Structure formats: structure tokens, C-alpha cells
């Protein structure tokens, strides 16, 4: 653990990324509590005004302050991201561990199902699920959660298989510890590292997926100021107001980049094998 913190502290980009994510989260959370920062407040006197001191990221076609809307959008993106990855992580890990640990026909069936799910392109699958469930933030989280379940399933299964044959599990089994206890006590802590790394990287993908689906009108409800919606509205106005098409994109890219860099940093810090390779 100490080694882990040491390695992570050495990786400055990962640390800065973590800082950015935390600051963005705190700032958005706090500002939503303050008055005068209503993302829906229209201002007919400041329609489509370019970035200025008063509106640092300009205003939209209803005179709504884009900076306020983007910080509000951060909360939506992060909420969708965390909950959908949480769904995928729980479902995938449980399925993967059971599948890898039990083996036999259960494993075969589950692996085949995962393989089939893998053969649907990410966005495409989310799109289909959204078309069934209908556009809403809850449905979006479920859809993205389903899409990323197989990845966690694969990691957890691989790790479970590896650990299953390890000496200490054999030992636990030989002294008569119950199977479910073995699974919880030994396997879960051991697969934590790759799962954490994958969860961080998946957060990046989840934010991208949320924005992409909302951009297409198949994500959150159309009047929610999520980043994807902001960008898709901004695109319609970009000839008159470039800032509406630029700032939401920067917000998405910065967050996705941060999660990607943090994920890479975590991988280097948690996995000594990978660390030596990249040196």
C-alpha cells in the first residue's frame, strides 16, 4: 500500500488528473447550492453573447450562462459515469468470479454470452438498449452499465481462474473452508487492483458514451443540460456562436483525459509488472 502511494505520487500527470476531477466535482457540487447559478435561468438581454467577464463561457440562444450549465453538466456526467460503472463493476465482477470459480458448463455458458455481448460495438449496443428503454437519465445509466459489464466479467473471470489454482486457495480448501467464504475472503481482494484500474478507465468511456448518446438525442432527457446535449445544441448555433460548440467539448475532453491518465497511473502503480515494462 505504501509502495502504491509512493508510485502514484511519483506520477505527476496522474496526480494532477485526480486533482482536476476532485476540484471539478467539488466546485460543481458547491456552485449548484449557491443562488444565482441556475442553469435554466434565461436572460433575454444577453442572448448569444460571446465570452466576457460576466459570462466567461458566453451565453446560449436563451441567454443562459454556459459556464453555469457546464458545471451543472459535470454533475450529470459524473453521476451517470459513477453509477453506470458501478452497475457494470458489480454485475461483471460477480458474474466473472462465479463463472471462473465454478467452471464447467456455467463458465462455458457465461463466457459465450460475454463473447456475444462483446461482438456488439459499444455505442451501438447502448443505442439499442436506449431505444428499448427510452431516453432518460436512469435508463442511460442502465444502458451504459450493461455495455461495460462484459469487460469486468472478463477481468474478474481471468483473475478468479488464476487465483483458483494458487497455493493458498488450495490450502484454504483443504482445511475445509466453505467455497463462498473462499471466494469472498481471498478472490475479491486479489482482483481489486485490475478492477480499480478498469473502473477508472471505464469512467472515461462512460462519460464519452453519455455525451455521445445524449448528443444523438438518445441519452438524458432533452431539457437536461448534460454535456452531450449542450454540444448538440451548440452545434446548431455554431455559425453564430462558436463558444457554444467549443466549451462543452473541452469539458468532456478534459474529464475523459483525466480519467484516462489516472487509470494509466493507477495501472503503473498497482501492477509492478507493467511498471517495469514501461520504464
Amino acid at each position, binding site marked *: 500500500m505504501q509502495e502504491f502511494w509512493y508510485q502514484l505520487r511519483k506520477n505527476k500527470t496522474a496526480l494532477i488528473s485526480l486533482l482536476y476531477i476532485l476540484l471539478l466535482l467539488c466546485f460543481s457540487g458547491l456552485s449548484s447550492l449557491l443562488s444565482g447559478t441556475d442553469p435554466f435561468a434565461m436572460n433575454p438581454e444577453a442572448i448569444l453573447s460571446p465570452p466576457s467577464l460576466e459570462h466567461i463561457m458566453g451565453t446560449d440562444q436563451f441567454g443562459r450562462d454556459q459556464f453555469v450549465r457546464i458545471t451543472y453538466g459535470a454533475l450529470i456526467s459524473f453521476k451517470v459515469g459513477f453509477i453506470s460503472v458501478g452497475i457494470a463493476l458489480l454485475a461483471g465482477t460477480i458474474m466473472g468470479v462465479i463463472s471462473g470459480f465454478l467452471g464447467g458448463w456455467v463458465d462455458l455458458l457465461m463466457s459465450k454470452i460475454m463473447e456475444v455481448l462483446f*461482438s*456488439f460495438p459499444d455505442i451501438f449496443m447502448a*443505442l439499442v438498449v436506449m*431505444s*428499448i428503454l427510452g431516453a432518460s437519465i436512469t435508463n442511460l445509466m442502465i444502458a451504459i452499465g450493461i455495455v461495460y459489464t462484459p469487460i469486468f466479467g472478463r477481468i474478474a473471470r481471468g483473475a478468479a481462474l488464476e487465483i483458483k489454482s494458487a497455493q493458498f486457495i488450495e490450502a484454504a480448501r483443504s482445511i475445509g473452508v466453505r467455497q463462498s467464504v473462499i471466494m469472498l475472503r481471498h478472490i475479491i481482494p486479489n482482483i481489486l487492483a485490475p478492477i480499480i484500474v478498469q473502473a477508472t478507465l471505464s469512467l472515461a468511456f462512460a462519460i464519452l458514451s453519455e455525451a*455521445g448518446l445524449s448528443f*444523438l438525442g438518445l441519452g438524458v432527457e432533452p431539457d437536461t443540460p448534460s454535456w452531450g446535449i449542450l454540444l448538440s445544441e451548440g452545434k446548431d448555433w*455554431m455559425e453564430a456562436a462558436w463558444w457554444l460548440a*467549443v466549451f462543452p467539448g473541452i469539458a468532456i475532453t478534459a474529464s*475523459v483525459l483525466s480519467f484516462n491518465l489516472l487509470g494509466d497511473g493507477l495501472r503503473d502503480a498497482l501492477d509492478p509488472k507493467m511498471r517495469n515494462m514501461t520504464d
Partner: protein
Amino acid sequence: MVKYAIKRLLWAVPILFGISVISFFVIRLVPGDTVTAILGAHYNEEQAVFLRTKMGLDRSIVYQYLIWIKGVIQGDFGFSAFTHKPVLDSILERLPITLELAFISLVTAVLIGIPMGALAAVRRNSLIDNFASIWGMLGVSIPNFWLATLLILVVSLNLGLLPSGNFIPLGESLEGNIRHMILPGLALGGAVSAVVMRMTRSAMIEVLDQNYIEMARARGIRKNQILFRHALKNALIPIFTVLGIQAGYLLGGSVIIEQVFSLPGIGRLSLQAITNRDYVLLQGTILFVAGGFVMINLLVDILYAFIDPRIKL
């Protein structure tokens, strides 16, 4: 070689079966059926029952699947009540555009990714390596629809260099068509170039560390020959794997990019099918896209056998 190919093909059969099952049944979970959607405001019970019988919707779902899959195998993906066309016709009509988009994106990705990755691997910690690692991260973090928006804003609207709408089919004008495809190709290929670059870099670093590379140097083989003949060929194996996986990204991403640039491809067809609740068409496109993805990866597996003589299953 042929035996290997057949073996891979047989292995793909259960996956394709799974895909067809999911494509068929998942769509049936949609609230409200096609008949309600077709009739819309003119809904009356009598007509609905008639249509349902005609379309086989009153039979058991397994029966409906069997009828559908039998048709699919014979090349009949069903008839869309919205487009008034066989599904396969609609798909085949739109397919060339999506394939062209995917092809241009792939070429962009390979032309940027492989040389940049190889150069970064050879000159580690140099300026180009730093630039490459920045692109490797940034490229996968920029949403393709934003990259598309920016390209339209800068290249199309401000500079007026390339068009961004009013697609021209390949049959009408080759030049016009390609001019319309460059920006979508760049927008979609950007992220793939980053992924290909990262894979090329790490594969090349690993290969360049191998004993046979040092032995090739000891034989006096020129540096460029070693890099581009001996090393790159070995590095191509993982690069192809990544390209196969990225094909899925290209197919999925085409939904968004086709929408942004108003390209009438498979992606837009699926979106249209979703808005219209056109089951039959949506089923067809899902099956086509997922099946296509599986077949591409099958092709990649067979390609391995061409590159690597050790693969003989």
C-alpha cells in the same frame, strides 16, 4: 491454411447465432409494437388484428424467430413497413457509404498511427515520442462528435475548404464524394490513429528488444531494413489485433459521425429505424453490424496466418 480458416469460421457460428438471438429478442422488449406504430393515429382494432396476423405477430415468439432466421439465411431480412422496401435492400443501399467511411478512417488511422508509433519507439524520449504520447492520450479522449464539430467549424465554415453536408454519392462524382468524406474520415479515424499509434509503439519497443534484431544488426543489415522489414512485420501481429477491435469502434462511431455529417449510411439507417420503431429494419441492421464485426475479426485471425508461419492449427 484453408483448414485453419474453416476452423475459425466454425468457431464463429455459435457467436453469430447468439447475435441473431439477441438482435431478435431484445427488440421484442420494446413497449408498443410495430403495428401500433404503423397505424399511428388511424389505429383501429380490426386493422391491427389483420396486420398482426399478416406479419405473423400473433404466433409464438420462438416461431417468429425461426421464420425470421430462416429468411435471414436465405438472404431475406424481412420487409419494412415504413420504407416499403425489403430490409436487405435498404441495408445494401446504405452499406457502401458506411464502408467507405470506415475505410477512409482506417487508412487515416494507419497512415498516422503506424509511422508515428514506429518512430516514437525508435527514438524513445525524443520530441516525437513525447508528441506521440500526448496524442495517444488526447486522441482517445476527444469525443469524435466534438472533433467532427470542430472540423466543420474550422475547415468547413471558417476556411471554406471542404463541404460538411449535402452528400454526393460515389456514382455521381468521385471528387465530390471524396471531398465530402475527408472530414468524416478524419473525425472518426482520429481516435483509431491514437490507439494504433500506442500499440505500434509498444509492439515495436518489444520487438526491437528481441535477440533476432540484435543478430540482424550483427549481420550488417541496414537500420532501415531492420526497422521496416524485420521489426515492423513482427509488430504487425498485435497491430492487426487492435485494428480488428477498432473495427467495432468504427461501426459504432459511424452512427454518430453519419448523423453529424448527414451521410446516408447504415448508422443513420439504424437511428431512423429507432425513431420509427421499425423493428424489422432495426433487427436487420443490428444483425448486420454485429455480424460484420465478428466477420472482420475472423478475417484478422486469418490474416495472422498469412503473416505468422507459426500459426498452423
